[in-house]
């Protein structure tokens, strides 16, 4: 049964939802409408006038080689960020859950990276992997590996993925840890008596019971990898080399603010909006159905 609160008049409910509606209007609906509107024009190079082109911007984008490449880059990037931030988080949570003493200390230490702002995290990793002065790249050099993410697109991708996922591990860890603690102890014991050893129990009992948490984190992390990794990419690679780390959001920025092509940039944000909307619908429709037991 769902509990509903019923109000007598309309004034109080309106007052209660007004702030939320106001914020959504100012920061979402208005800019979104602006983006849709602007995506139908091409401004002149000085920004003084604009020319209506209908869906011309979209047509151009969808046939643009660079834009399609950016789609693929985004897919790879967000899959990697999600995996790299969720799997180690789950593993650490399992280890912390097994601890009886000191779990609190362990947990506190693991939360710290989450407090580091994305851009700062980016700079941190940039210093460590700097081709000339970085600690890690120096050690890699000693081992005979020539690290250069400024020239090597794969290495650049690896670096932005790790830098983006790093702080998220803390966040995911917290959720996984809480979920693990709420798995009933007696269910685990029953499985132990039934003959399942630790990892068998983990995969057949614990993991399925974690699935609501896993699903939630999946959605949240995909959205994160799309929208909140801008700072990391901007500080580490600025989308390079040769656009190999230019994800869709970064391209909106670089085409719009750097390239001053506001029409195309707006069209890209509209496409992005649609993509994320579709992704979320798919996730909820097909995956969520399987996670409730």
């Amino acid at each position, binding site marked *: 049964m769902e509990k509903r609160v019923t109000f007598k008049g309309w004034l109080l409910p309106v007052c209660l939802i007004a702030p939320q509606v106001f914020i959504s209007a100012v920061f979402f609906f208005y800019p979104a409408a602006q983006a849709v509107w602007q995506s139908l024009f091409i401004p002149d190079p000085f920004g003084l006038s604009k020319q209506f082109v209908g869906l011309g911007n979209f047509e151009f984008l969808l046939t643009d080689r660079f834009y399609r490449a950016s789609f693929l880059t985004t897919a790879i990037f967000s899959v990697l960020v999600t995996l790299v931030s969720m799997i180690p988080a789950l593993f650490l949570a399992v280890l912390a859950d097994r601890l009886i003493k000191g779990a609190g200390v362990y947990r506190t230490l693991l939360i710290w990276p989450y407090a580091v702002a994305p851009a700062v995290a980016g700079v941190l990793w940039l210093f460590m992997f700097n081709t000339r002065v970085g600690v890690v790249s120096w050690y890699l050099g000693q081992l005979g590996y020539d690290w250069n993410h400024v020239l090597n697109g794969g290495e650049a991708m690896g670096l932005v993925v790790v830098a983006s996922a790093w702080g998220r591990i803390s966040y995911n860890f917290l959720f996984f840890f809480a979920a693990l603690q709420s798995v009933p102890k*007696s*269910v685990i014991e*029953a499985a132990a*008596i*039934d*003959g399942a050893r630790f990892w068998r129990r983990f995969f057949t*009992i614990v993991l399925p019971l974690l699935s609501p948490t896993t699903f939630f984190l999946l959605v949240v992390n995909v959205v994160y990898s799309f929208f909140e990794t801008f700072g990391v990419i901007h500080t580490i690679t600025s989308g390079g080399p040769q656009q190999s780390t230019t994800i869709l959001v970064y391209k909106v920025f670089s085409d719009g603010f750097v390239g001053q092509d506001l029409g195309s940039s707006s069209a890209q944000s509209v496409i992005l909006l649609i993509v994320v909307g579709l992704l979320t619908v798919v996730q909820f429709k097909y995956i969520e159905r399987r996670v409730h037991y």
Partner: protein
Amino acid sequence: MATVTLKNVKKSFGPTDVIHGIDVEIADGEFIVIVGPSGCGKSTLLRMVAGLETVTAGDIHIGDDRANDKEPMDRDIAMVFQNYALYPHMSVAQNMGYGLKIAGLPKDQIDAKVGEAARLLQLEALLDRKPRQLSGGQRQRVAMGRAIVREPSVFLFDEPLSNLDAKLRVQMRLEIKELQSKLGVTALYVTHDQVEAMTMADRMIVMNGGVAEQIGTPLEVYESPRTLFAAQFIGSPAMNVLDAEIKDGSVRLGGVKIAPTDAADGKVKLGIRPEHLKPDPSGPIDMEVQLSEPLGANTLLHGRLRGSEEPFTASLPGVHRTSIGSHQMLKLKVASEDIHLFDPQTGTRY
């Protein structure tokens, strides 16, 4: 099928000693009930047999093997938990077949065994349901089914009926007992309900504060409780325990002779079960009735002894509509074979 032997088994959680050394030999196929008040260590004892808690000292043998260091899965036991501990994401059939699947049995054999257990427990119609779609009693049965499909040597039950309503509890009590004797599997059954203990046990272990106060058949414990605790815990309503005195070969309450005895003179605790009291106009016990509870088959009378503040209860057969009301005096007697004498210092039986 196996014997279970506990030799001076002890358990401490850090500095707190919870089980102070328990010895018992359980025969093959025997139904043992561990009964005692909350927190006395029943679950802890059972979990040590299951291998879910380590044994601090002493030995546990299941069959011929020392089991102390064996994993739960290697002990050939099955356990039914108080909250059933079903796997919430699996169907009833999967729940029951999980252990067999892990043991690597082929699917058709698993299906056959699960089917058989389901028939035995009348769960056939529910095999495809998830635990959340079952009633408490049905979940209980699934938990039983999961225990029996693996054909263990020992069943362990930790208060399996405490979440059921009174009527279902009586029914399941019989079913569990029947199933156990049909399968001939040794069983250890934990409960805090003395009625369950009396009705189900071949032998019971009466526990208190981590100590086995008495180990014996229900009738042994009822008829000759070895300690004051066992005397008061088993039997309903609880036994009356009074300060009494032995002088000149008889037990005396406030100087009045109650029954003859050959125990030595001195102070004693006198125990009398309420159902052993009989009305008798010349009886030596003077009771002031304060409250009468008619239960139909018998009537409980609560009050106190004349000239004392000690509560006293009598249970008389049948209905006593008018003859006994509040604040009436009632004279009672008790047969000398029905009195229990305990050492006032140690609480052990004379």
